[in-house]
């Protein structure tokens, strides 16, 4: 190992004598502002952005057309049947909700733990969270048989004099996801106010000034405002922290509280939360690697940031792998033949290809991150992260489809075959996600400038904190 000399763009070395800088290069306040703002202020939008936007917007359009078709025709357009009453829509829902975990974790929990390295990536991750939750929110909404009655899930005073059934985990889910979406959006927006004000102040075009000015809510950067802001941010962080744990716990209750063998498992809440963080971080890495290269953010979002995230991916992968093993152990230990069969069937039954894809992607592949080379090489980590996302989608598929396809009575066993509509809607949800994401990259500050500024070494060389 070389000595503590930190090169300009590699801050990944761990030398206890020196604290590695959180941003690379010679960054001062002005350069940070310039680096971040110029992306949003660029006069000419890059052609690549247009191409990407056209593709993703078309897919979004397809998604909404298909939703229209679904409204007219009925949920039979999917492959769902009896016994697999829930199919891809719910798989996609859990997948997207899981992805929507990294943002708030990075923002809230790491904030509370004073992990300063979060500052470069939190805006990005939070945006991703919100867009993922948007995608997630669509599926359970359109998934129900009578979509026009979806508001009956809400507890509102009505002429029927009926409350929803508070025993139903699905109802908890409605509360958990909507609360999470609200708090995440608020948190994201609140954190963005000082940066929006910066964009407003730098704007040369009156329309831009009006738009940014409106959303900056009159931010002037006074000490009092900063004080209020910091307090509010801290409070929201404290509020969001339990939500990170609760939302996926509640999502897991949809399964754990039911009695389907393979679902009825007490390990589900922690296992789901770990899986969600796992997939969320993987998605951040997947998006961050190309974005930091394309938008010239390599000095703000450094390899060290990516490496840290990869370490979290490795850690959560171990948790997830442990959970898989525990499920099998408990299935055997429970003495319930249905439980044992559900798990044997996962590993050896007709959907074993899905199970082993999941194990390979989620348990085997992330072990590459034990090697520093893999943790710090963008293309390797991108491949790993994509595989993790694939694996996590399959995890939900395995949990939902294989468990339902063979439950208690062999007479009712069935197979699930997705329809082209299933596939197209899933692809369309990616379209929606990327559409929103591209708009974010183009018009909003991708990095929390104000926070990064607080984390840089204030221009004084060699004085680590």
């Amino acid at each position, binding site marked *: 190992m070389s000595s503590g000399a930190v090169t300009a763009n590699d801050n990944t070395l761990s030398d206890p004598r020196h604290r590695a800088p959180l941003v690379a290069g010679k960054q001062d306040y002005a350069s940070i502002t310039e680096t971040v703002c110029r992306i949003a202020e660029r006069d000419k939008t890059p052609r690549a952005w247009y191409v990407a936007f056209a593709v993703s917007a078309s897919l979004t359009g397809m998604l909404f057309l298909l939703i229209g078709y679904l409204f007219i*025709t*009925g*949920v*039979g357009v999917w*492959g*769902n*049947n*009896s*016994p*697999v*009453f*829930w199919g891809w829509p719910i798989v996609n829902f859990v997948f997207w909700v899981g992805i929507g975990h990294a943002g708030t974790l990075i923002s809230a929990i790491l904030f509370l733990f004073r992990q300063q390295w979060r500052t470069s990536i939190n805006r990005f991750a939070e945006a991703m969270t919100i867009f993922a939750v948007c995608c997630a929110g669509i599926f359970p909404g359109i*998934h*129900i*048989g*009578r*979509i026009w*009655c*979806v508001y*009956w*899930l809400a507890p509102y005073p009505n002429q*029927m004099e*009926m*409350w*929803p*059934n508070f*025993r*139903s*985990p*699905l*109802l908890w889910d*409605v509360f958990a996801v909507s609360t999470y979406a609200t708090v995440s959006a608020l948190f994201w927006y609140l954190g963005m106010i000082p940066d929006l004000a910066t964009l407003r102040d730098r704007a040369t075009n009156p329309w831009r000034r009006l738009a940014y000015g409106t959303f900056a809510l009159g931010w002037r950067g006074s000490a009092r405002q900063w004080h209020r802001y910091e307090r509010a941010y801290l409070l929201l962080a404290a509020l969001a922290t339990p939500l990170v744990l609760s939302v996926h716990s509640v999502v897991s209750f*949809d399964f754990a*509280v*039911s*009695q*389907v063998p393979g679902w009825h498992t007490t390990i589900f809440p922690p296992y789901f939360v770990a899986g969600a963080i796992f997939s969320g971080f993987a998605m951040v890495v997947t998006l961050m690697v190309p974005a930091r290269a394309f938008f010239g953010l390599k000095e703000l979002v450094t390899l060290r940031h990516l490496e840290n995230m990869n370490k979290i991916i490795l850690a959560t992968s171990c948790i997830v792998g442990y959970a898989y093993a525990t499920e099998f152990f408990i299935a055997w230990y*429970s*003495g*319930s*033949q*249905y439980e044992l*069969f559900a798990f*044997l*069937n996962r590993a*050896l*039954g*007709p959907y074993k290809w899905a199970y082993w894809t999941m194990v390979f992607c989620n348990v085997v592949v992330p072990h590459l991150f034990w090697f520093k080379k893999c943790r710090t090489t963008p293309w390797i980590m991108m491949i790993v992260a994509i595989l993790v996302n694939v694996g996590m989608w399959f995890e939900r598929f395995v949990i939902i489809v294989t468990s*339902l396809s*063979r*439950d*208690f*009575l*062999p*007479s*009712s*066993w*069935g*197979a699930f*075959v997705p329809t082209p509509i299933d596939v197209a809607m899933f692809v369309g949800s990616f379209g929606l996600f990327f559409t929103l994401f591209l708009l974010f990259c183009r018009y909003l500050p991708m990095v929390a400038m104000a926070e990064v500024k607080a984390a840089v070494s204030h221009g004084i060389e060699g004085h680590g904190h």
Partner: protein
Amino acid sequence: MPSIADHQPTNRPWRSLAELADAPEFRAFMEAEFPAKADPEGVSRRRWLQLMGASLALAGSVGCRWEKEEILPFAERPEGRVPGTPERYATAMDLSGSAIGLLVTVYDGRPVKVEGNPNHPQSLGATDALAQAAILNLYDPDRSRQVLQREATTRGTVAKWEQFDTFAKAHFDELRGKEGKGLAVLAEADSSPTAARLRDQLLQALPEAAWYEYEPLSRDNERAGAVAALGKPYRTHIHVDQAKVIVSFDADLFGDHPTALRNARQYSSGRDPAGEMNRLYVVESCYSITGAAADHRVPVRAGQVGRFAAAVEAAIAGASADIDESWQKYVDAIADDLKRHGPHGLLVAGPRQPAEVHAAVHRINAKLGSVGTTVTYTEEPDSERSGHFEAIQELAQRMAAGEIETVVVLGGNPVYDAPCDLGFAEAFAKAPTRIHLSLDDNETSQASTWHLPRAHFLEAWGDARSHDGTYSIVQPMIEPLWDGRSKIELLASLIGSESSAYDLVRETARQLAGADDFEACWQVALHDGVLANSQWPTVAPNIAEAAEAVVPETDDAEEFDVVFVRDASVYDGRFANCGWLQELPDPMSRLTWDNAALIGPSAAERLGVKSDQVIAVTVDGRTVELPVFIMPGQADRTIGIALGYGRTAAGYVGGSLQNKVAPVGVDAYAIRPSASPWFAPATVAVTGKTSRLATTQDHHAIDTIALKGIARRLGELVRETTQTELHEHPEVIAHALHLPGGVEEEQLKSLWTEHSYDGRRWGMSIDMNKCIGCGACVVACQAENNIPVVGKERVLKGREMHWLRIDRYFRGDPENPSVSHQPVACQQCENAPCEQVCPVAATVHSKEGLNDMVYNRCVGTRYCGNNCPYKVRRFNYFYYHFDLDKPGGEVAKMAFNPEVTVRTRGVMEKCTYCVQRIQAGKIAAKNEGREVRDGEIRSACQQACPAQAIEFGDLSDQESKVAAAHQSNRAYGMLAELNVKPRTKYLARVRNPHPSPDDQNHEQRSRHG
């Protein structure tokens, strides 16, 4: 809209309304054209409402598109008739010359449900699936609606009955001149004495005319067997209730026997494990429900059954026969049992078996002394007629020779279902005048010059006799929907009779009743559905001793036999356009919407085929291609193919080339030779094509892990034992399941406060010891609860909608497994898992313990379906009633039970224990100021069940039958270990195997362990 002043009140029925419309206020109102402009001052609210009513009625009369409409209000309401209250009328349904008595529920003149007539000896209150489906057949929009005259066009030109009558009068006058020369009548088998009388009159008037009778599912082998053994074609009647040992040689006693319903009842009544149980041996080639009910089943190739019967005959006589090693133990056991039970032994041979087998059976029965106890004989009606296959052959030859100029086909569909080698269609086309009376414009109609729409049996007067001769009057429940005429009416018009069908039937009844007070007798017969003491008297024929047992020769040249099987759904093909029946899973294969080549696992292995792979089956140079379905328990070297599929002119459900609807399944008549219409040697070739079969249960083609999993759980889910074991260990059923940690079911803790009841608690019990798996309950449930038909594509997807399904499980050796049938509907769990997870509380518990489904609250999250361990919840993935909005839907709508909601798309549905019947029963009891009596409220499945396997009632009433059943030592709750507390309990099946045959399948069953 024309001015009201122009409206001429000409239509008599509207008279009072027209007068009302002529009132000055009403004119003012109509001219204002808008109710808001009507002056409310001068009109009282009451008057205003009257006017509104009149305007609606007038709107109806103006917008009406019918040529003529007669609405005749009751001047006096018939006594006892309350609008909206169902009435029940007795009638009878004839199928191939044997009738079962029915009670038809009629709502405001609209028949909606068929039940069995408890007074009728062949029904005993039960029905089969085919009778249940009569309602859908009646309202089938594809039914023929008019007389069609065909020259060159295939669609035909629409004619009127008057045109036909004019033609027929001239034509038959001409024929009368020739004494009927050149006329042939081909009729389907029919038990109606009136029709027989008219036939005789016709033949009297036209002595040169020929009358042929043909049924593709003929039972003429029975007649031939009787001739061989008894000298005359006596009719055999079996009395299963008298039998302690029943041996069936390829006879499907509970499936296609004319007295199947009665047999099932009598069989199940002899299965009480507390008493002496009967024992059923079945020797058969294709797995039937009778085989599934058997204590011992021997798979034997169809052509070898005769050898088996001969071996049994020899064994009883103390001789031994040279037979297959594997048969010996069964032959010994059968002979042992029969010898021990003497007159309480019963042997039956099936209609597929040749006369020699029937003769052997008659001889053995006589030898045992069973004649008079388990077997009786009566004279056979029409004993002189020639056999069905000979008849159609002769007709085809004569037509081909040009001897026939006019052929009248009364019902049936010979162009489709005649044996393939007769060239029937070509011969038929040679007759210049071809007249076909038929419910639908089918294959034969399309080959005829005149197609005449037939009245459904629920639309016309008629009569019928059951297998034992009991006479029933067939009374119309509704005016003919499509101007059809019954067979009796057509025959009457052909012989120039002016009498109505009603008068003709009354005339027949008068002759049969012979009573002094005929009117009273008629009324009673009409009400009861049977004419008392009208069954045929028994006779005691002499049974010829055979010099030596005649063993029928079998053709062993080819590797495979094709066995032509009566289909449990479409029968001979006539019910092919009935969605309920097409979607009814076959009791054994669980196939819907298809027939297949059923072959055993080892034969399939030899051929190298799997289910869904298409094979070409060739008989006598004629080939059909159809997919394989591997059926465990099929006799080796046997291919079972159901007849009745591949219809090309059935309709939008069953297939219609004219309307570009592909046929359902494959037409097996295309390879059915007239010489051996039941089983024939065949060659098989693998084609390499595949065709997906829609089965509702996947059992064979699944992986090892699944097979192991099924084997492990089956002993808990579907518990079985033997009578000996039950006597030795009365707790064997309850102890079939051990919870981890030795916890008892009662100790399980509930997550929520459980429901408590101070009144009724509805419950059900299903006795699997009685259930024969026939499927009548499934169609009854479908008819009662307006359950949609979804079609083959959606069955393939796993979206069938049956609230009640019959699960079928195999156990043991795949070459001869035992089969268990288990009807599963909603178990109305006390701790219902569905109720806890529904976010909108659309499924909730009622005060009487029902798990109610609130359709208009359901938003369709389908969470309940996931959480239901029995998977009995069904989801409307689409709007399955869209066709009701189309033309023709008006008729289809009439089949719906008005007491039950028709569910829309996006809602979950499931069995309610027929809550509408519960409510009706409760209301009736309340109106009479009494408690509901046990047995008064019956669910649709219970009512239809021929074996009386289902009990329903109030569990809080300790005297109720269902409470007693729940107390039985055979009772268990399926998956009760989940603490869902199911309200339906199953009563384990108890088999009664002969102690000696070393049959491993029957040994391991639900062993305490």
